[in-house]
């Protein structure tokens, strides 16, 4: 209570001493005490200034704690004489602004504490009258921790973007570089196969001893071609994989453009390319109302083409393929498109894997034709690079629904 007394004294003293000269009723004193307690216990810093001179008449314990200046160091000084506020109020411009406006608010004000700590505060001041005299109350909220968390978040975000770019470029460069040795394996195994044939022709004409001729024949017609076959097959597969990875890596190097996409026109074009296939299998595509989105037209067209292609590939034999494409504007400013089919569907356990590179579904099904296994990987990357999302819902044996959210507007 001793501390309180001192401050109470200081407070009354600096406000002109007019209150102390008058005898107080019990009620008034009680109310004053209550407000005094609020001032003392506040978890925000509070400074009371003389509105004319800018002299600090009172400071609550929180601000003393926060800045590390003692009550004596603060009281009686002008705001701009305190180290922490020196830079901000140095020109006194801001103080004049406060005097004339009667209110100022600074969202992120940097302050330096007595021990050099950098603080970040929200600073709100009001001018009001107390018994004829103008008083300024400054409320100072310590936002240092929040600010630091925000800065840290920004730093992490930047790091993620940087890392991501690094990975993109790493993927592109390594994949590209893998092609160099592969060209040699490809080309020279082609030559080897050619030379083997020539060797066979030459040796079949040559006059070799019977036992040797038979062994040479086995080598040239069975063993060597078998090895060559596996090398060629491996090279083909590897070449396809590198080609697919390059396609994915290149996506990271092209910045998508953004325009208002006329979905009816896009789907007319896309469906045109599938017309023959759809007719052959007797499939139908129902297109419902499709709102425009803001995206890269080429990207949207490729994503829909891929989803329709997948629906055709993974259709259920013996059931007429039906694809429905619909769309709506959602509450959060996105356009949601849905592409549903009545095809083979996806097993629950496989649902998350479909986005992985080189994944192919229904590999055990002999009736399904497989591609490079990169379609959905590319679709996901494309949609995400356009500021959208894509997800899937599916029931095995019933059908699959792809849900694509794209920005409605720029």
């Amino acid at each position: 209570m001793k501390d309180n007394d001192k401050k109470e004294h200081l407070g009354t003293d600096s406000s002109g001493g007019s209150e102390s000269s008058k005898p107080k009723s019990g009620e008034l004193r009680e109310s004053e005490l209550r407000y005094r307690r609020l001032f003392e216990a506040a978890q925000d810093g509070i400074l009371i200034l003389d509105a004319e001179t800018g002299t600090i008449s009172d400071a609550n314990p929180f601000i003393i704690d926060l800045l590390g200046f003692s009550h004596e160091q603060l009281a009686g000084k002008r705001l701009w004489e305190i180290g922490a506020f020196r830079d901000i109020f140095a020109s006194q411009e801001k103080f004049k602004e406060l005097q004339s406006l009667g209110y100022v608010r600074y969202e992120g004000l940097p302050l330096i504490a007595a021990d050099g700590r950098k603080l970040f505060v929200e600073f709100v001041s009001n001018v009001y009258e107390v018994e004829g005299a103008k008083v300024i109350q400054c409320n100072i909220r310590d936002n240092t921790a929040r600010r630091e968390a925000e800065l840290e978040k920004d730093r992490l975000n930047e790091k993620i973007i940087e890392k991501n770019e690094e990975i993109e470029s790493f993927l592109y460069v390594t994949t590209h570089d893998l092609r160099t040795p592969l060209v040699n394996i490809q080309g020279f195994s082609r030559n080897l196969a050619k030379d083997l044939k020539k060797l066979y022709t030459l040796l079949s004409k040559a006059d070799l001893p019977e036992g040797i001729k038979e062994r040479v024949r086995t080598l040239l017609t069975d063993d060597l071609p078998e090895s060559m076959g596996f090398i060629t097959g491996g090279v083909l597969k590897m070449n396809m994989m590198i080609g697919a990875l390059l396609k994915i890596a290149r996506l990271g190097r092209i910045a998508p453009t953004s325009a208002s996409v006329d979905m009816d026109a896009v789907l007319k074009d896309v469906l045109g390319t599938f017309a023959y296939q759809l007719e052959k299998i007797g499939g139908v595509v129902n297109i419902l109302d499709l709102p425009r989105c803001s995206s890269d037209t080429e990207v949207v067209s490729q994503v829909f083409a891929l989803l329709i292609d997948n629906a055709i590939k993974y259709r259920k034999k013996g059931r007429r393929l039906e694809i429905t494409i619909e769309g709506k504007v959602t509450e959060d400013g996105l356009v949601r498109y849905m592409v549903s089919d009545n095809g083979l569907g996806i097993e629950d356990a496989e649902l998350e894997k479909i986005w992985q590179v080189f994944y192919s579904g229904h590999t055990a099904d002999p009736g399904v034709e497989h591609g490079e296994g990169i379609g959905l990987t590319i679709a996901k990357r494309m949609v995400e690079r356009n500021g959208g999302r894509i997800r899937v819902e599916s029931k095995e044996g019933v059908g699959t629904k792809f849900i694509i959210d794209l920005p409605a507007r720029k």
Partner: protein
Amino acid sequence: MRSDSLATILIAEDNDGHSRLLQRGLKDAGAQNPVIRFRDGVEAWDFISGKSEPCLDPAKRYLLFLDIRMPNMDGIEVLRRLKADRRFRHIPVIMLTTSDDPEELRRCRELGCDKFSIKPIAVEEFAQIFGLPLGPGSEISPAAAAENKDSAPA
């Protein structure tokens, strides 16, 4: 000498294997033209621009196979310099690459390359390459040598 009447094939390729594959491909396709190989873009450009000795002979005809990725000076830069120079721009240039990067293809087309091939070049592609005109007033393509194709192994 017969080879005097044939165009000289210039190969700018840093990878030994790729260069051997190309030379073998040319041979298998029936070309008997003299070949000069450079290991990077600088060597190739020094030969073409006359900085090195021996160098390009303006009286002779040439065909250039130009790898894109090479140390010191890449193929794109050599292509740019060659097609920007009226003394050399008639020389057909076949750009060699390991991947079908559309961006690279676009750059090369823009600079005026005559053909763009992904390594290793398939046998069928050589016929197309031999059909490239070798410059103003030139009627004879290096494929003239390929006429006696029966000398090529079956």
